[in-house]
């Protein structure tokens, strides 16, 4: 289901004049890593959030989903409106997608350079085994 999550994250963090889009930040590899490492329940939540995002377009732009089939303008409008929906479970589910995407977007060294932040070194993932 990573393709569905990827499509959703691309809508949430698109390219702009200031920043590259999340799609250019190694998103596929990031999602593969996330799926392999995160708790199953969290990944399931991510899939649920992405699915809800894709099929909630009637609520925001009055068009049936999935969002990925809409025009760029409508998808951007959907991204803006659905993240502010008054439906709490829906907002929370999409917040999870946004948070996991934000961890990919915010560690990109081009973004960090624009923010006057040093690039991250790779997370070692090591531990004391002896």
């Amino acid at each position, binding site marked *: 289901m990573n393709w569905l999550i990827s499509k959703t994250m691309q*809508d949430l963090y698109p390219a702009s004049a200031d920043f590259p889009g999340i799609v250019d930040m190694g998103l596929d590899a990031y999602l593969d890593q996330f799926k392999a490492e995160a708790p199953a329940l969290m990944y399931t939540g991510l899939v649920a959030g992405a699915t809800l995002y894709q099929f909630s377009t009637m609520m925001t732009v009055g068009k049936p989903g999935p969002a990925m089939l809409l025009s760029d303008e409508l998808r951007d409008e959907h991204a*803006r409106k659905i993240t502010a929906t008054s439906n709490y479970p829906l907002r929370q589910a999409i917040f999870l997608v946004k948070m996991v995407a934000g*961890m990919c977007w*915010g560690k990109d060294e081009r973004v960090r350079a624009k*923010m006057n932040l040093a690039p991250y*070194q790779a997370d070692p993932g090591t531990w004391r085994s002896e």
Partner: protein
Amino acid sequence: MTHIAFRDVGQDVLRDVDFVVVGSGAGGAAAAVALARGGAQVAIVEAGPWRDPEDYPESAYGAMRDMMDDWGNTMAMGDALWPIVQARIVGGTTVVNSAICVRTPGDIFRQWRDQHGVGGDAYADRMWKYQDLIERELHVEEVPAHAMGRSNQLALLGDERANLGGHVMRRYVKGCAGSGQCLQGCKGLKKQSTNLNYVPETMTRGGVVLSCAPADKILLDGQRAIGVTGHFQHPTTKKKGARFTVRARRGVFVAASVTHTPVLLMRSGVKSHHLGDFFRAHPGTGIFGVYDEPVDMNTGATQGWASTKFRTDPGMKLETLAIPLELVASRLSGGGHQLVQRLTKYRHLAMWVHACRAESVGTVRPTAFGLSSKPMIRYGLNRADMERFREGMKTVARMHFEAGAKEIIPGIQGMPYSLTPDQLHVMDNAPLDPRAYVAILSHLFGGAVMGQNPRTSVCDENGRVHGYDGLYIGDASAIPTNLGVNPQHTIMALAMNAADRALEQR
């Protein structure tokens, strides 16, 4: 020095010691070192792996994966879902917190005496002596001026103008360099988390540390605790490993955190009327101030300013808190081009927070039918607490404007994205629905509370579980009320006291 990490199936571990301590955070490490100093042979059993500073991650992703309990996804469920932030690593949450040191306020001991029959003046004196010792040993000092960073400096200014009675934080940090990486672990060895001091000292005094070792059960012989058992868990693959059993000749300390200690006791068959009850917390959230000049909030101490002036009325603590860019990216509301446009202001943002001294109580229980080792936390805020919560938001907003913010970003569902100084009154009508806020529970209390009466409490003032021999609570689970201040100092003092009293038992 003996450290036993993950062992694969077939390599079972059996140890005999005087005391076994479950958990290596503020409470567990403090109890363990006190026991070891008293001449006892101690084993620390820690669910998470041992990561040295060179193993620490830098990114928020790495911190959630490598440091946090369940990736930071333990949720308190009530009207809203609010995450609980705690670590699962040798050193516990002391590795990922901001090492804030606040002495237990005197009124807390009087409250414990009046409401729970424990504490009182003599008890307070004893606790403060432990806190004197801890402050010396862990090099408690104010954040040095060169490490404050712009966000903390602005907070001092806002505080002065708004008369909030704040101060530069005192922390368990030796020579802070202001690297802004408290939440990912301090690679510079400045923060005095317990994996750098009390845990190694316990080992040099003959102790043993089992890491990657989540305890399944406390072993009981009738009403006497005689050890701990469980299975190693691989920190990366989560694969179940060999069985470990640590037999304790003199006692078992449980310091596995407010969410895990009550569940471990229940799973072990410990009976107590109010086990898992009286869960309390400091729910908190932040407001961004937007300033003309760059703030670069991730430069300088992650947290460097605080005020406890409002701890008793209306009941809140104010602090600065610089969250990593990755989390700012999701914390700002919006999506699509609107969101990335909002993020262009990142360098001009300062995040300050309030922690609400909530009176509401909740429960901690095991997952139904034992389907998971994950604790289930039920917790919601009543109206009075939500009013306190809103008051905290308003105070932080006012402070930002006094410090010169051109606008604030309250992050409240249903309210404008940003407010200018002339719109501050809008905060008076901020919703009292917890679902409107993105909040976290940062400091936890209760679940195995102390008290004189076994019918209304789980342990006595020295951590001894009522009705059991050799079984002690050594963490914030024992704290029966909401402190209104950062709890690490209180937890450590309570744990050291419990350890010293346990040493007197023969």
